[in-house]
């Protein structure tokens, strides 16, 4: 494997679950420490990683300079530190840049996780400390980005997310890269089958025994239990709920007012239909 193997998703779509699974699976199914072992699949946009490979501090750069620099740094990371990485970047070209933050030639393969945007809206509201209304609005915002805190240093560098629809399609339509799309709902409905597919795609041990063992170590109750006991360093500062909050599909039916659910569908219907959310 050479280059970056990405676990790519819009925020709150199951990325951390896959990382937890891989953190165990890559270490022969051993139990995971939530606050240490997710580093098996580190965040590509971590400020320290980006600063190290860029050879300067992103906090001294303008947003446009960061957008120009990121593809160059991605290529450098792909060359010098290839492996698994998590990202919420879209595969779109941010304003002022000439290419996406992670250009295709830096990528080995991509696992793209997609989740019903109505559930994403509920989860993102709790994670970022937004109202449900705001959450739905931001998912429609084609200029949405994360990793930028105006008043203090953010642990990540800036990521151009765009709207939920644009984000999902940017990866689904990525040319020139090997891609596996997984739906969060399918991961929940049949974990063994979905994660076996994941392991096969990543050239990892896909035997039933190994996959089941890693699934057991990364089950929701174990992760939520660890967070309850020792906290989770990746939880947002503005969050209003635990990071591992529900871990369910279809929560929007009770948690999202009908008018907002309709707004999500109105905005994202085409892409929702494309990935099977009727």
């Amino acid at each position, binding site marked *: 494997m050479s280059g970056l193997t990405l676990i790519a998703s819009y925020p709150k779509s199951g990325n951390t679950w896959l990382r937890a699974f891989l953190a165990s699976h890559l270490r022969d199914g051993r139990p995971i420490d939530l*606050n*240490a072992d997710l580093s098996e699949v580190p965040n590509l946009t971590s*400020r*320290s990683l980006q*600063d190290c*490979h*860029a*050879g*300067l*501090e992103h*906090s*001294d*750069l*303008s947003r*446009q*300079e960061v957008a*120009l*620099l990121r593809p*160059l*740094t991605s290529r*450098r990371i792909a060359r010098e530190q290839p492996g698994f990485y998590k990202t919420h970047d879209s595969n779109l070209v941010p304003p002022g840049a000439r290419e996406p933050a992670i250009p295709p030639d830096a990528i080995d393969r991509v696992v793209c996780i997609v989740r019903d945007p109505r559930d994403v809206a509920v989860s993102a509201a709790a994670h970022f400390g937004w109202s449900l209304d705001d959450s739905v609005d931001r998912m429609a915002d084609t200029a949405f980005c994360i990793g930028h805190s*105006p*008043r*203090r*240093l953010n*642990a990540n560098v800036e990521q151009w997310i765009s709207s939920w629809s644009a984000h999902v399609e940017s990866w689904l339509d990525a040319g020139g890269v090997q891609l596996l799309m997984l739906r969060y709902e399918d991961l929940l409905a049949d974990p063994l089958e979905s994660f076996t597919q994941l392991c096969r795609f990543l050239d990892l041990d896909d035997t039933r025994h190994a996959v089941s063992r890693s699934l057991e170590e990364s089950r929701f109750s174990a992760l939520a239990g660890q967070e309850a006991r*020792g*906290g*989770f*360093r990746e939880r947002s500062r503005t969050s209003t709920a635990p990071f591992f909050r529900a871990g369910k599909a279809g929560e929007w039916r009770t948690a999202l007012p009908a008018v907002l659910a309709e707004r999500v569908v109105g905005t994202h219907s085409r892409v929702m239909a494309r990935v099977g959310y009727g």
Partner: protein
Amino acid sequence: MTDGLLCGWRIRSDIALPELLDWQGDDRIPDLVVRLGEVDERLPEGREISPLLQIDGTGAGLLQVPMVGRFLVRPSGGITIAPQPEASEAEIRLFLLGSVLGMVCHQRALLPLHASSVAIDGGAVAFCGPSGMGKSTLALRFAQHGHSVVSDDICVIETCEPPRVRPCFPRLKLWRDTMEDAALSPEGLERNRRGQEKFHFRAPHAGVREPLPLRAIFLLRRAGSGEGEGIQRLAAPLDIMAALEAETFRLQVGHALGRAETLFQARALIANDVPVYRLTRRADAQPDRWLDAIAATIRG
């Protein structure tokens, strides 16, 4: 324009460098001369060290910051800057007194640590750590208690016995939240970059002119879940040397300039002569809480 004092060097510059103390030393030829002029996009026979930096076989470096300008840094001490039309002087100085200074240190075989430092009891105490770990914040809090700021991002170490810190300038780069937490207003201060809520704060006490013995180094780190806070001295020289390597400012530049050996010797000397501590704090720890403990640790 008066020449300035930077890390013991006499510096003459086409652009004003208000952060620096005036040169009051002998009438030597300036060690560093900063000129505005043309700079080519490529360094002939330059090798790419990082995405925005090339270095050639003579030891010259070319840094290109897209919206700020090109900086050509010759080992002779000649620095030519070709600014972008929209760049402000503050933005040019940010890179001149940051990345370029780091390169000059490597060209001159000094050890630049990614650290802030303050004067305590006639010596310099350095705080190292990744961005966001509180280096500048600690320096600010010491400054508010009457200590001089010796350096902010780059702590320049001269490897004599005992190792000494060459003072940079008493300016700190601080985010708005950090300033407001310290009851300071950023109103009227220069911004780090246009539109950014990070400011250049000049510490109130007169800067330091002469090199100071390096009294101690504190490696700042965040406590993991369930881990306690505290100060722990590193005992094993190999641990100290590994930590100092990780904290070297622009290590790749030093290596590209053929300084691996001298950097190794510098780390070995520090590991032998200077106490190095790990300061583990929680993310929400009040900065002032640690000032007394740090001072007490140094005083033994």
